[in-house]
């Protein structure tokens, strides 16, 4: 017994040291455990309402889940959805082309317009006036999309719309375009409404970048004889690069535009405004068996396209941190 006590006494400092060491390692690696307890509720909410839907959607994209077929939620069908999409679904390719066209129409315009407006607002020296313009530019962003699009629907009406009224009364155009009813005009018309609705957000981001540029750089350049264009090209644009990258990455989502078309034309006329987003919506919530699995695979493809685009943007426009 005595021998055992001696052994225990000898071991105690070793055990204590070990525990102390383990605690130190744990604290070093994991930090204070109470922190985990405090973030647990938020984490739980995130996992339930953000992470799980993503995982569920991902799984759904490889199933033949049809809302009307009971028990089809987890009926995995491998890559069949993608085989159908690429080789047997003509509407998919049509909608893909429309989405691409829409992106080509809106993205460059939105980028240039928001940069231009941001430059103009940033050049205003009176703070109150600048704030007024910032609010004006940002207002369409906070307007609910349904309200904004119904407003444009009124503007575009071929007989009573203000646009055609103006064309007829002021410019004496006898046959003004049927903006939303004509195959040639419907997509550009929606693109215009879409740009109006969202360019304010990009403008604000550009403004943040512009306000962060040191004025002394411009003064120095002016002293060196640089004109306005040279100052923009050699100072403003390079320093706006991080913001530019962010805006390009954020705008990759334009390709999946759905709501504008749903409200203004529902894909018409003659499917001229049927984007992939809208096609997926129709398949999932309106037509036949309500093929949620197939629609999810379309949305997954859109997601992959967005990720690739964002990845390319970050790769080729990477900037150093200032």
């Amino acid at each position, binding site marked *: 017994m005595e021998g055992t006590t001696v052994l225990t006494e000898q071991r105690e400092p070793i055990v204590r040291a070990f525990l102390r060491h383990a605690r130190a390692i744990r604290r070093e690696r994991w930090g204070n455990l109470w922190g985990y307890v405090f973030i647990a509720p938020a984490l739980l909410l995130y996992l339930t309402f953000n992470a799980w839907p993503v995982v569920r959607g991902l799984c759904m994209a490889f199933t033949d889940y049809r809302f*009307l077929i009971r028990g089809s939620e987890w009926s995995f069908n491998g890559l069949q959805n993608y085989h159908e999409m690429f080789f047997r679904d003509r509407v998919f390719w049509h909608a893909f082309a429309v989405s691409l066209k829409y992106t080509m129409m809106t993205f460059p315009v939105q980028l240039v317009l928001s940069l231009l407006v941001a430059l103009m607002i940033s050049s205003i020296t009176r703070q109150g006036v600048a704030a007024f313009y910032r609010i004006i530019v940002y207002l369409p962003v906070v307007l609910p999309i349904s309200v904004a699009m119904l407003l444009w629907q009124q503007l575009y*009406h071929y*007989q009573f719309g203000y646009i055609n009224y103006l064309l007829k009364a002021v410019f004496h155009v006898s046959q003004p375009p049927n903006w*939303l009813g004509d195959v040639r005009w419907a997509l550009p018309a929606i693109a215009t409404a879409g740009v109006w609705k969202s360019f304010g957000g990009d403008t604000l981001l550009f403004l943040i970048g512009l306000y962060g540029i040191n004025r002394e750089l411009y003064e120095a350049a002016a002293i060196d004889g640089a004109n306005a264009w040279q100052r923009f090209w050699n100072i403003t644009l390079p320093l706006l690069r991080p913001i530019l990258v962010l805006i390009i990455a954020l705008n990759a989502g334009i390709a999946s535009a759905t709501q504008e078309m749903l409200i203004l034309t529902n894909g*018409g006329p*003659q499917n001229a405004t049927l984007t992939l987003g809208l096609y997926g919506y129709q398949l999932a919530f309106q037509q*036949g068996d309500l093929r949620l699995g197939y629609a999810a695979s379309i949305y997954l493809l859109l997601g992959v396209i967005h990720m690739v685009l964002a990845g390319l943007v970050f790769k080729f426009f990477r900037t150093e941190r200032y």
Partner: protein
Amino acid sequence: MTSQQRLARVPGIGVASQYRRLTRRHAIAVGALATAAGPVLAACDAPAAGRPAEAPAKGRVEVGLIAARWVIDEWGLPQWVEQYNKESPSAMIKLEQVPDGWQAKVLSMIREGSLVWDGVGIMTPFIDKVQWVESGMIQPIDQYVQVSTVDGAKTILGDLVPTVKQDVTYKGQIYGIPYSVEAIGLMWYTEYLGGIGLREPPGTWDALLDAAKKIQIQFRSQEVVPFAWVPAIHTSLQALIHAATDKPYTSEGLLDITGPASMRALRFMRSLVEEGLTPPHGSDGYLDLWQRSKLALLLAQNSRGVWAQRIFGPDKADTGPVPVAMRGGPQSGTPFWSNTFVVFNGAKHPQQLVDFYIWLLGPKNDKVQQAIIESGKAPVLDSIYKSKIENNQRFRWMARFRDLIAASVPYPENTFWSIQNSKIMPWINRLMEKGSTLSLEEAMNNALQEIREEVAKQKVR
């Protein structure tokens, strides 16, 4: 000005000092205020539509009913719920507006056995019926009606206009109690028809074409468009096919778009467009035109006529049947559908809900039927047509529709309508381009091929 005040005006420093003034104490105060304001605001919230303020009395069960906003508002549903709750000894109806994405919510609750509502209004049978039954969302109500002791329970199903009853029937069972029926018809402004000397609407396609031409000449200076249809198949081609044949659907359960009646209807539609008697494509911007009374005649669901009456007065607009291709020729009525209340599968109190439906929509509840008629919706019970419509000058059009609906061929029982609508409308739009050289046959054959391709992918048939 003190040095501190001067410092505060310096850009940057001034702002920083403002931030400094916001202490943690301020943040805690704001948080406490917000927390206190939450319950106060929640308490100020008006009770949901028709929601009873008190809990159900002992022995009474609470029955959950969700309904679309327009159903709640259109004929005063909350007040009828309130009255029922006062009278009923066994149930208390809790009425709520349908939440966003309610179908997915209901279905998942049913599958988990945790359903909180008992039923919903409204089912539109030609779009929803098969989907809702096959997905297991709703259950048949025949058994509940049979054992119900509510006044009118024994007669309500037999009193339904026969085709309306068929509309809510699937595989031999009845899936709801309809409260009104809508059908495709011709609506017109009396001023324009009167302006060309017509007291009655055109009854045939030829007469319609003739009237449209006269209206165009007579009201050209007012920029009145003579005729338009609503851009969907049931409000255009499908309605005209019904008016030209007694067999509007094929054995596949599809609209017969390649048959002679369809070709004739499309030729008629095209001639209207080519003569400039319609807005572009026959329908572009029709709603604005109609609501501003710049459209003389409209092919649409019959409630659009009542909309016009509400805007301009009851004598300014009227409603009638779709003109037929040829007087005395074959026809199959018109596309129609009922607005139906249904019971969810797994409902806790299906019997009590069906009892409420019978009390609300049965032949004995005169006041509700009157409210439904006043809202512009045609009733579904034959007895109501006899007691309330036949001698009512303002709503006599409903009597004409009753007969038309009774003689109509109902939609086939499948889920293909939305597919057909999405495939046929783009081709109709192409055909209705002014100067289009596309042949009717080619357009409809292409549409049919696309429909068949999509239908082949469906499992529920």
